[in-house]
């Protein structure tokens, strides 16, 4: 399998008034064609930043180091024009908040036509028809009416279906889904997940699925990447649940998953301590201060991201290979 997206020592630093902020550190990781990778972690772990970095949608004061190769081209070495030419044309995205993702004063249909702007081979009418058909493919009834409605006339679930339709219309090689169900209520979330399962079959490329819902990852993804404080701590296959996850942080995350709790539990598990301050100088393992297994070595030496098992990566000195 050839890597569709390959990150090598990818780092991202934001220049802030208080000094540089390392929001992503040494991400080493690749995504193959046809694969679905779940990216999980606590809030502030850098999941969405990673998604935005893949989309090349970074604030002006962000500096990328290392490489991020998409089909062999380093995305962050491209000119802004070349970057733009890949967005919506190879790389597409579904965003977290469907309530604000669309222009409020333009009917949905016109926006869906606009998203196909790279398809210069299609005329306006064909794009409109494709958008119309895509709306029914993502499970919307009466797409003809939907096309003329404004975003505010649609519910969150419908809007997220429209968001997924928008991404699918561009026939992406790489689809970034940045917490596409987080803003939705539980029932709607289940419906959107069902749709995403179908999308899996429609997309002829890879999907990066950013979420904090581990249950979703286990049922939906081929591999899981665990992030913490801007670092990649573990990558493991999701063959039979999360049996391959071995990093202490991954274990702690699993223990905190509400779906893992038994009905009688009076105690809600948490990970003690706080996510470290990204401005503080980096020393040792990022998770060491909160890790039950850490010792002095962990606090002083940064463990490398090393290969374990067949296609797993882990950044921990305590877990045996």
């Amino acid at each position: 399998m050839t890597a569709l997206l390959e990150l090598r020592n990818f780092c991202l630093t934001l220049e802030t008034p208080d000094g540089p902020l390392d929001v992503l550190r040494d991400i080493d990781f690749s995504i193959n064609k046809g694969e679905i990778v779940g990216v999980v972690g606590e809030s502030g772990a850098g999941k969405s930043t990673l998604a935005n970095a893949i989309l090349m949608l970074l604030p002006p004061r962000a500096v990328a180091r290392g490489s991020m190769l998409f089909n062999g081209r380093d995305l962050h070495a491209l000119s802004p024009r070349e970057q733009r030419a890949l967005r919506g044309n190879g790389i597409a995205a579904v965003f977290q908040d469907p309530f604000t993702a669309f222009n409020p004063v333009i009917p949905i249909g016109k926006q869906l036509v606009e998203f196909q702007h790279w398809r210069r081979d299609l005329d306006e009418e064909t794009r409109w028809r494709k958008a119309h058909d895509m709306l029914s493919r993502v499970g919307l009834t009466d797409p003809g009416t939907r096309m003329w409605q404004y975003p505010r006339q649609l519910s969150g679930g419908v809007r997220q279906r429209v968001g997924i339709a928008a991404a699918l219309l561009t026939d992406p090689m790489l689809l970034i889904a940045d917490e596409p169900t987080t803003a939705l209520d539980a029932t709607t979330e289940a419906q959107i997940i069902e749709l995403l399962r179908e999308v899996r079959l429609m997309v002829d490329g890879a999907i990066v699925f950013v979420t904090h819902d581990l249950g979703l990852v286990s049922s939906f993804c081929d591999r899981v990447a665990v992030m913490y404080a801007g670092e990649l701590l573990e990558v493991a296959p999701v063959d039979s649940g999360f049996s391959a996850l071995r990093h202490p942080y991954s274990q702690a995350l699993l223990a905190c998953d509400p779906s893992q709790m038994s009905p009688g539990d009076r105690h809600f598990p948490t990970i003690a301590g706080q996510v470290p301050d990204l401005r503080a100088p980096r020393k040792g393992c990022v998770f060491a201060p909160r890790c039950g297994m850490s010792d002095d070595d962990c606090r002083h030496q940064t463990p490398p991201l090393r290969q374990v098992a067949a296609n797993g990566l882990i950044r921990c000195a305590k877990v045996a290979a």
Partner: protein
Amino acid sequence: MIAYLFRRIGLALAILVVTVSLLFCVIHAVPGDPASVALGPRATAAMKAEFRAEMGLDRPVFVQFFMFVGRVMTGDLGTDVLTRQPVARLVLDVLPNTMVLAFASILWAVVAAIGLGLWCGLYPNGWADRLIGVISTSIIAVPTFVVAIYSLLIFAVQLRWFPAIGAGKSGDPLSYIHHLILPSFAVGLGWVGYLARIIRAAMLDVMSENHVRTYRAFGVSDTRIALRFVLPIVIVPVISVLGVGLGTLLSGAVLTEIVFDRPGLGRLAYDAVISRNYPVVTGTVVVTASLYLFCNLVADLCLARLSPDARAKL
């Protein structure tokens, strides 16, 4: 939509009644006897009494008040005390000139402001943004009549590019437009910077919103996003400001008409005030107020049309 329209028209009429009532109070509060002004210092007491009876000035104040409001609201603006012509005729004769001036000024100001505002909003803190910011602030601070006088001196007197006075030969559109350029430049200039700043600020807000990020994520260029998807949103505050600011714009137009000696509401009102021609003063004020209310109504309807959210509340 229809119910909203009627509600808004009703509100506008109510405001007009209040305006006319206030106008009546102001006229009666101003010292000076209309009879002496109209008839001159050598009029006899009998002539004055006859004049007062004719104009209804001998009746009790509250009777005069209801007669006045009733007359004005039915479109009878009275008679010019000097020329004995109906005021409504005088006003309607010059009204198109003022409206054309106001409309031309708004038009060029809005077009220029959209261009500058979008540019500044797309490239905030660039050299163009800073330059436009400084210049527009300075120009906003200069009153319209000063701009009018200097543009007259420079472009009409010194450079002789444009005619200095009048509204052009009647029946000659080219001459009419030629005479319109300088006055509308003067009236509109202050608005360009003001509106451009409003558009810039709104642009900065909207460009950081999620839906703009969505378009970027689909590779749509920033220029196209700004023109096609952000402009319909940032134009909303411009219309609100114009609807309310029309009063200021009209007062600018009035002074500009005097500077350029253009026939119009402003000139008419000015001459009437100088000669204490009360019915004409009243007439011009009532017509200006109606114009203002009408434009506000149009602005609100435009907003309702542009914004689906506002439309839903109708």
